[in-house]
């Protein structure tokens, strides 16, 4: 059993935080875990991508071979399209529909969403709305993680524990908002 995940978004959206939460849940679940992160220049509002690999057997490296990812977890619709070559033919896309328009030539959103809707296995999440309703606009990344949770070999209760411990430093309100965002993400998200 293995789950190879490509995570993507725009610098500042919390791609690495989402990956970190899922990775830690994997460790607690007794899985082999490897994660690849890109730090540095690209993070200044640029395209950000990370990889997360979960398996019950040892994992060869950080990088997921192209055409083999089981899940593309995306925090931004246009960014989703950039990494489709990573997806296995049977892979799922779980993506936020909220654009980050920090470039002058952002295409019409409807065109982007149309392409996403045309994908055979996809879950599109209005992540910003979910996060806002949960109490923190910063929790959109956790909402998308929630929408993808059932596609991963992870226990939702363990993910909730990780969220609780991880955000505790920022206060109970932040923890609650993230837990709610995760839960609502799961509700609107991918079926088991």
């Amino acid at each position: 059993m293995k789950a190879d995940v490509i995570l993507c978004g725009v610098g500042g959206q919390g791609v690495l935080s989402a990956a970190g939460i899922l990775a830690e849940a994997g460790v607690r679940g007794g899985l082999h875990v490897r994660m690849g992160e890109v730090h540095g220049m690209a993070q200044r509002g640029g395209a950000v991508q990370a990889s997360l690999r979960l398996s019950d057997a040892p994992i060869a490296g950080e990088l997921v071979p192209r055409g083999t990812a089981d899940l593309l977890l995306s925090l931004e619709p246009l960014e989703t399209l950039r990494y489709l070559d990573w997806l296995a033919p049977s892979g799922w896309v779980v993506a936020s529909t909220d654009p980050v328009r920090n470039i002058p030539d952002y295409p019409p959103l409807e065109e982007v969403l149309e392409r996403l809707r045309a994908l055979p296995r996809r879950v599109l999440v209005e992540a910003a709305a979910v996060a806002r309703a949960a109490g923190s606009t910063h929790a959109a990344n956790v909402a998308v993680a929630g929408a993808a949770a059932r596609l991963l070999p992870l226990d939702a209760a363990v993910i909730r524990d990780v969220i609780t411990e991880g955000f505790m430093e920022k206060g109970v309100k932040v923890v609650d908002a993230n837990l709610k965002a995760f839960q609502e993400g799961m509700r609107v998200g991918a079926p088991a």
Partner: protein
Amino acid sequence: MTRKLSSLAEPRLLLGDEAVALGVLDAGAAAAYAYPGTPSTEIFETLEQRAHRHGVTAHWCANEKTAYEQALGASMMNARVLVSMKHVGLNVAMDPFVNSALVGIRGGLVVVVADDPGMHSSQNEQDSRVLADFARVPCLEPADQQEAYDMTREAFAVSERFGVPVMVRLVTRVCHGRSLVRPGPLTGGGPVGKPDSPRDWVLLPANARRLWRGLLDRQEALRDWSEGLAAGVRVLGPQGARTAAGGEGGGEFRLGVVTTGIARGYLAENVPDLDAPLPHLHVGAYPLPAGALRALAARVDRLLVLEEGYPFLERQLRGVLPGTVPVAGKEDGTLPLDGELTPDSVRAALGLAPRTVGAIPEGLPARPPQLCPGCPHRDAYEAIGLALQGEETWTVTGDIGCYTLGALPPFGTLESCVCMGASVGMAKGASDVGVRPALAVIGDSTFLHSGVTPLMDAVAHRTPITVVVLDNETVGMTGQQPTVLPDSRLVPIVLGVGVDPNHVHTIEAHPRNVEAMAALLREEMAYPGVSVIVGVRECVVSARKRRSGERRAAPAPSAGESAGRTTDPVASGGEP
């Protein structure tokens, strides 16, 4: 000071950089020095967080050269010591690095250098193994995060055993990849004290000749050491079909593979798809283990070399004269010479059929990095753009940091970015040959790193240049490390090297000051001598962190007790 427990209580999901830091602590290092630079920054950040608890001196330094020299002093006094930097930082530290190979290293001196193949956050992809070879010092190359921990510890022992500095060569994917790392027991170095043979530290020609000879004489022992570490040949892929694997060249196998560092993982990724047995040798230590390589070569018709970075091992195998075994790799085009290796490029090199991949729509707009909203650099670039309006010939040389993005739209202001501190010297050179006004744009930390010495040259020759120091009170791009001196020292330094006080100005880099800053620039651009304008305003990311009272916040669930990770993705990483 008692330190019995490992820095790590249990296996943890760690960045390679964090694993190195914990390896340094568990090896009993007494001191650590660094200058921030992606992808090496998190090594020192992790160390710094734990330094006090472990009784370790940990200092960010002015630049990599000063960092290296401090490490050398600690080693001379028999303390175990780390110096870490990014690959181009080793260029800055080259003088002490190369010469430190000759002196009588006592306390283990480990230099961890993080290469950036693919240039995620760098201006080149130079391979530090070449420089270890140049200095004739041993080099360890971890293949994953566990090896990053283990090899760092090993490096201290090797340094003391052979009396040489030891390089640990990392690459971005090891630095910024995470996997479970299991700690080992705590060890330690010897007692601090002065060297018994002080002549081993004085590189006067007579001593240096003797010490150089001694270093050359130790190379054989170093080769024996790396030979002992080479794992020997393992046959991968389907077993039992050896006869099918035999080549027309009469070898036992048609093909053999040598990997170094992380290439081992990319090979392993493709092993399930091999249709014939494939003998494999992994190399993790240099000088290269010639015996093990010859043993593999004797069994195959052809060798494929998989290594991240330059074709370093490949070139040594290939030579220029016809060999008995053809070597494939980067030099014959089997793999690209530039960029990172990937599981996919290794797959192609192995001759395996490419996988089916989904189509990416054509014409997707790129999303390059950009200056943060509200960044003070934006205001400085507005002002420079305004000041240059109407000028016929001019140049604006740039430097290394967030503000390098001023070379991109919408500003397009900077005309160069080469290396730390180059803006000042390049502006002087341009001015010397008549291209004026010549402006140099440099950040506060970069100025302290390498900008002061070229400013002395400009002062000495009264060259008409205007240096714009962008003072955001932090090392911004690598995640808001403190500058080595507070910003209040900038103007005294500038005055101290002799810039005329009438031509040194400080102005807040703020939207309301754009006109005033432009006017100041125009005035100084007309002055036929050295002028310095310091544009001051705190980095917006620093300000946000400070306000929320969470400098170095580490809410990463995966980081937990062990990690020094900053989860605000904007805050981590970047070129100094």
